[in-house]
């Protein structure tokens, strides 16, 4: 038990441990083999779509500036809540937006979902800065970089002593919107893939017409999409261990291992969701 780990260097370890990565790959291959053995080509396409959606969510979470409790006191940059809450807010807003456009085709729906998620996070980021600047009277300043990578504005002059920075610098704002776009697109893609599978198979399973089972198909696809979304969002949150400033944060470099975890987790949950109507 590595109980006495002590303080880790900034950014923590970013590498991928080889043996767990290989074991994850084996689990991933077993899941796909199981799907190939039991499912139809439609199910296989759906599972691939779910994994792509999972990767988008897992990658997108790393962009969102999460401040946690220190941000609520203006002592760290970011939005003052946890990763799971923010990802759920942005991603599920996107998912609901995309679900409205489901009948217009995959591409339109996914783009709509991305815009929904991005818009949700843009509004959140805007009001976070509004409250910080006009409510608490503090400027936006990053604690992790000397210059904003996008605007080139210098940061240390505006940073209060004893804090990690505060508010949302421009790069964090952009990161939040990108995270919302990716999360919303991923969540919608998972929903659409499952909806296709259920609409094709449920009439046979439940011995009813496609119109009759539509509410069940929508509800099942929605619940599974929310479940998969939350699992991946929390795993990605575990990867960044709490707070991150955005794409310029050193912790952002940890994303490759979150992609491995997201791929395996989405395949695992997706195969259960598809086999519900296949076996």
């Amino acid at each position, binding site marked *: 038990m590595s109980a006495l780990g*002590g303080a880790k260097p900034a950014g923590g370890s970013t590498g991928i441990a080889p043996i767990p990565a290989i074991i994850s790959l084996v689990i991933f291959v077993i899941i796909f083999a199981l799907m190939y053995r039991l499912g139809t080509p439609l199910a296989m396409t759906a599972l691939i779509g779910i994994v792509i959606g999972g990767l988008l969510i897992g990658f997108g979470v790393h962009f969102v500036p999460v401040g946690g409790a220190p941000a609520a006191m203006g002592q760290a940059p970011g939005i003052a809540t*946890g990763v799971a*809450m923010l990802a759920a807010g942005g991603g599920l807003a996107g998912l609901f937006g995309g679900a409205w456009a489901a009948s217009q085709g995959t591409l339109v729906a996914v783009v709509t979902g991305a815009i929904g998620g991005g818009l949700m996070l843009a509004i959140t980021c805007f009001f976070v800065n509004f409250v910080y600047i006009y409510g608490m009277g503090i400027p936006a300043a990053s604690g992790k970089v000397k210059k904003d990578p996008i605007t080139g504005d210098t940061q240390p002059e505006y940073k209060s002593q004893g804090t990690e920075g505060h508010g949302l610098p421009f790069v964090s704002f952009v990161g939040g919107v990108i995270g919302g776009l990716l999360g919303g697109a991923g969540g919608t893609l998972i929903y659409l893939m499952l909806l296709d599978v259920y609409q094709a198979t449920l009439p046979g399973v439940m011995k009813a017409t496609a119109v009759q089972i539509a509410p069940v198909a929508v509800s099942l696809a*929605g*619940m599974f999409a929310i479940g998969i979304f*939350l699992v991946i*969002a*929390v*795993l990605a949150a575990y990867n960044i261990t709490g*707070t991150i400033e955005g794409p310029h944060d050193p912790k952002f470099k940890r994303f490759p291992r979150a992609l491995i975890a997201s791929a395996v987790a989405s395949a695992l949950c997706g195969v259960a969701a598809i086999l519900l109507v296949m076996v």
Partner: protein
Amino acid sequence: MSVKIEVIEGGIPHQKILIAGLVLAVIGLYLSYLNVIVGTQIFAFFGGLAAIAALIWGSHTIKILASYGIGTGVPSAGMIAFGSGVIAFLFATKFGLYAPIVAIILAAVIGAILGYLANEVLAMHIPVMIKSLTEMAVVGALTLMGFSAMISGSFTFSALTTGSTKVLGMSLPSYQTSYIGGALIATVFLLGAIAIQHGFNACLGPGWKQDRMLMLTAECGFLSMMVAAVMSAALISPAAAILSFIIGLLGWYYTYMKYIELSKRDAAAWLDMKPIPEVEGH
């Protein structure tokens, strides 16, 4: 990262809570199955009691996991518990009578793999991670199954997706007036996810006491049970829904008073403030 900041002193050991929660939840679920055997809906409330037993167990698991400082906030634990639980629960419903057993096994497999991913691939290295995520996925699945049995009277796929509506005196099958088709499951998902994490989220800190936290979780569980009873009026007979509601109300009242008592016991000082202070001179 994995420095354990609090230890559990005294109180009931976790193993006992785990076994009690698991056994009571499974017994409660099968007692709710009496509905199908006897041909009534009056035993639906056993599902709610099963869910509360699972929630109390889950709350203690969150305490064990969160005492290692996972850094993502306590609510995230509730979200992953129900995110993985809902997948196991929905898949298990197709196995009819064996649904609770299948749900436990499948949730344990999903939870263990997620725990492995978190611990090894994401390099969390928390000793209890795999065990805790396994337990929480099972808790999530059992809680959802318990509330489902309470709202729709059964936990099988056909019962959860098929309801009936009366048109001109005839009873027709309707998929919209059902637990899943009507998306009542989405409400239950968050009712459970909030109830499982609130106990520890509200009671954590240096003054943490096991009995107080578990009592608060039971109170949240009964509160959720009351809401679920109101929703169940749409799907099961009014008598069964009212019985569930009364049991929820009595349980909530008892646990709430008990929780206030325990809070007074653990508080440094207690000022019994009236809701609206009386102004002098009236």
